[in-house]
């Protein structure tokens, strides 16, 4: 019951159900509630995971800084809201309203998306293209370095304090309640929003890759960049596009999750780790896999958090991932890649 109360309040909600049900009889209501919470926040993991997969498929780079980049873009959206409302967003205790309407919200998202696209293309062109021939470790560390740098810059520009992130008015309404109070399941509009946006974006990505010329070119490039180049595909520009798309997904994930996580330089650290795990679980090369992985991680995370306590939550998630990987080294939906010498 405490779990539900915490979930329904608006201040400082945890990522998952916290309470530990030791000694209590098993309750389907609580189980279902955990699963639903898991699915809804799992779509945030899925959005970031799809971003990681997009980058990995196009340029064979694992972006360890996806979380930090999402964090930076959330700060950009926050600043966008400040700009539109005419509030000095840099000052330590900027009083942004608790709720914002359509205009401000969409304006902020638009700004964040534009910055995401430019940033993605710039990172690809100036940061990773020079490393195309370097070892995997160099590339991994370059993204980690970029993430660390972003973390420092954000703490510098916006100061490392916790700020509430304005809630989108349309989804701040009363939560939906299924069933009668002692045995009811509560679903906030925000949670529904996470899932709906996640699914819509996944579907749009599917359409993009299936039916557009650029999407087909991206698929060709993921399959064999060398052959794609011979076919006249501009591989460099497409890589930039993949990075831009990836960061735009992260920006949306950040803005959606902002009110839940609250704005601070560490807001995405945990989410980034989980998203990364989700991408690997799904197979690293499969977008549907990333979506599935995100939802699965979300559910495991919540169930483990509820039944085993917060202490062991992440351990269980990673244990399951390691087990899955040992049994299926290419993830749930990944393709087996045979290496030629």
């Amino acid at each position, binding site marked *: 019951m405490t779990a539900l109360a915490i979930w329904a309040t608006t201040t400082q909600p945890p990522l998952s159900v916290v309470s530990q049900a030791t000694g209590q009889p098993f309750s389907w209501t609580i189980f279902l509630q955990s699963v639903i919470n898991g699915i809804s926040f799992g779509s945030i993991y899925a959005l970031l995971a799809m971003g990681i997969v997009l980058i990995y498929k196009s340029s064979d780079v694992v972006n*360890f800084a996806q979380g930090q980049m999402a964090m930076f873009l959330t700060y950009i959206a926050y600043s966008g809201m400040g700009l539109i409302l005419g509030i000095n967003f840099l000052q330590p205790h900027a009083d942004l309203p608790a709720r914002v309407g359509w205009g401000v919200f969409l304006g902020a998202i638009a700004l964040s998306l534009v910055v995401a696209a430019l940033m993605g293309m710039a990172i690809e062109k100036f940061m990773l293209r020079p490393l195309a021939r370097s070892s995997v*470790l*160099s590339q991994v560390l370059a993204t980690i370095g970029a993430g660390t740098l972003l*973390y420092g810059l954000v703490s510098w520009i916006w100061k490392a304090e916790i700020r509430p992130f304005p809630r989108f008015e349309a989804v701040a309404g009363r939560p939906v309640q299924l069933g009668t109070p002692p045995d009811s399941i509560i679903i906030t509009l925000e949670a529904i929003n996470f899932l709906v946006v996640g699914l819509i974006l996944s579907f749009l990505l599917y359409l993009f890759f299936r039916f557009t010329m650029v999407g087909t070119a991206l698929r060709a490039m993921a399959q064999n960049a060398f052959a794609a180049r011979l076919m006249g595909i501009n591989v460099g520009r497409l890589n930039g596009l993949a990075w831009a798309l990836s960061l735009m997904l992260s920006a949306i994930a950040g803005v959606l999750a902002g009110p839940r996580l609250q704005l601070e330089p560490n807001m995405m650290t945990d989410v980034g780790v989980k998203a990364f795990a989700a991408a690997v679980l799904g197979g690293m090369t499969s977008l549907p896999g990333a979506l599935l992985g995100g939802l699965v991680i979300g559910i495991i995370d919540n169930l483990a958090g509820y039944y085993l306590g917060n202490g062991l939550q992440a351990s269980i998630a990673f244990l399951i991932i390691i087990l899955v990987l*040992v049994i299926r080294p290419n993830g749930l939906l990944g393709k087996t890649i045979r290496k030629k010498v």
Partner: protein
Amino acid sequence: MKWQKIQQTASGKYTRWVLIIAGFTALPWIITVLPFFGANNYTYSQLNLWLILAIVCLGLNLLTGVAGQISLGHAALFQIGAYIGGYFVARQGWPVWLVIIVAGLGTGIAGLILGLPALRLSGPYLAVATFGFSVAIPQLLAGSQDIAELYSDPNELATKIGVLTVPKQNLPGLKADDDLGRYFMFLLVFLIMLVLALNINRSRHGRAFYAIRDSETAATAMGVALGKYKLLAFIVSAVYAGVAGSLFAFQVGQLDANSTSFSVLASILFLTAIIIGGLGSVWGSVLGSAVITILPPFISAVNDTIKAAFGSSIENFESIFYGLLILIFIYFMPNGLSGAFQRLRMRYSSDPSKGPATPAEPAATDLPVS
């Protein structure tokens, strides 16, 4: 004496080691030349932390630089070593030198477990598996009451779960707070591990590690047992982390499972150190960890200057610094400091035929591998 003669004498096998040992012995006094490092306990404790970091990096470099297996889980191995070391000294009262060996071997077993997924995974998958290890171990040590009861002080358990208080250890006859004395105790361990690392690199096993890094397929074709050597690399690397961990327990006196010394950030710091020093280079690990250790007071001095100039200091300033440092080394000095020294030596050497001591990374092929 001519310069060449001096050089020849200095590079003689035994003379060289005499010089190296003399250098390390004199280091606590030499380092006081640097700003911020006076002849005080702070300096000596930093030196001790440097030796600890260097031992971890020797092991990590063997695994990542030599055998080519990425590990983001070394902070967890380090932590396991620290807790084993702390437990046997604080709760069982075993002699220190025995405990160091036990911590090394115990962590070696943990390394075996960490290495098992490596048999089937590579690249990003391996990074995630080891990363998960890094997340899970602190949680197991801090979050689980059952495990915490094993090592915590029963009187403190209720208030501090995951905290293990260890009496600081020193050479026999010296006070526990004497960091300069402890430096020589750690130096002994460090030198043993250093000689071991140098010898492993040059051994048959070391060559097998290089072969695996350069091409797993080619290594298998040449008769290198892939699984065996990958596991061996993980185990040896873990032994290094474990030994360093136990020394860490003797140095700091109190272990907190949730501290950043054992978090994923520490794993990244270890990797940063070997990138700065130079992948696959034993002396590179020593140099890289020295850079990481020397930097903090300089960083905070820069931040103080900023505070004086602009009125407020920058929070998390070291993140900007480390981020830039990683990027600079990856883009401009991909072979690290040891690579730069190697180049200098080749340029001014009397015998240019002496190439780099360690095989360089192979150039990536132009052909698509799919």
